[in-house]
């Protein structure tokens, strides 16, 4: 079964609103990563947070990690129509050595 599961499966918001996506996982991890996938394209890395970090920012993105609850959230602030995509969390057991395990994704639709 998938290591990470995103919630909600789909999210529709208006441009300018914030979008929050959650990810839960089952086993201990070394790092957690978020990726974006536009329709018909490959995945693009957004941010990596290590197990000893609690929060990380990158531009309009904010990621939190709670290892005690085995969960993470991705917040996109002031969303734009161009943010419309699927977002996946992926868990890593150790950096660079083992493959990432991806969740099923959240499909985000930002209405202009």
């Amino acid at each position, binding site marked *: 079964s998938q290591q990470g599961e995103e919630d909600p499966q789909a999210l529709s918001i208006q441009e300018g609103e914030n979008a929050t996506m959650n990810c839960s996982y089952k086993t201990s991890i070394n790092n957690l990563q978020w990726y974006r996938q536009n329709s018909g394209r490959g*995945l693009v890395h957004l941010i990596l947070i290590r197990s000893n970090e609690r929060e990380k920012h990158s531009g309009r993105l904010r990621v939190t990690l709670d290892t005690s609850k085995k969960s993470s959230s991705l917040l996109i602030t002031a969303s734009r129509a161009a943010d419309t995509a699927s977002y996946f969390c992926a868990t890593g057991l150790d950096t*660079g050595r083992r493959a990432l395990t991806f969740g099923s994704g959240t499909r985000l639709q930002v209405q202009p």
Partner: protein
Amino acid sequence: EAGVAQSPRYKIIEKRQSVAFWCNPISGHATLYWYQQILGQGPKLLIQFQNNGVVDDSQLPKDRFSAERLKGVDSTLKIQPAKLEDSAVYLCASSSNTGELFFGEGSRLTVL
């Protein structure tokens, strides 16, 4: 810096036929992955290479799927014979030692 190159982008075959996908990773990336992404799902690892050695092929259906990475650079994924359930996007990714994955645009396979 050139990204991960994959070909072909699209392939339509009939069941029981064979197909091959090619991937050229980012220069200098020692690790190469093949993921299978079925419509509406997250990517699922098929095989991971470190240079030209296999690190993990536990989820590769070895009765019909094979992959090689000659000289530790390019890689080829083959399916023979194809089944209807093999219809999916086959994503190639590469990584250095930072942990983040760089994906190609994918090869979309339709099996009729």
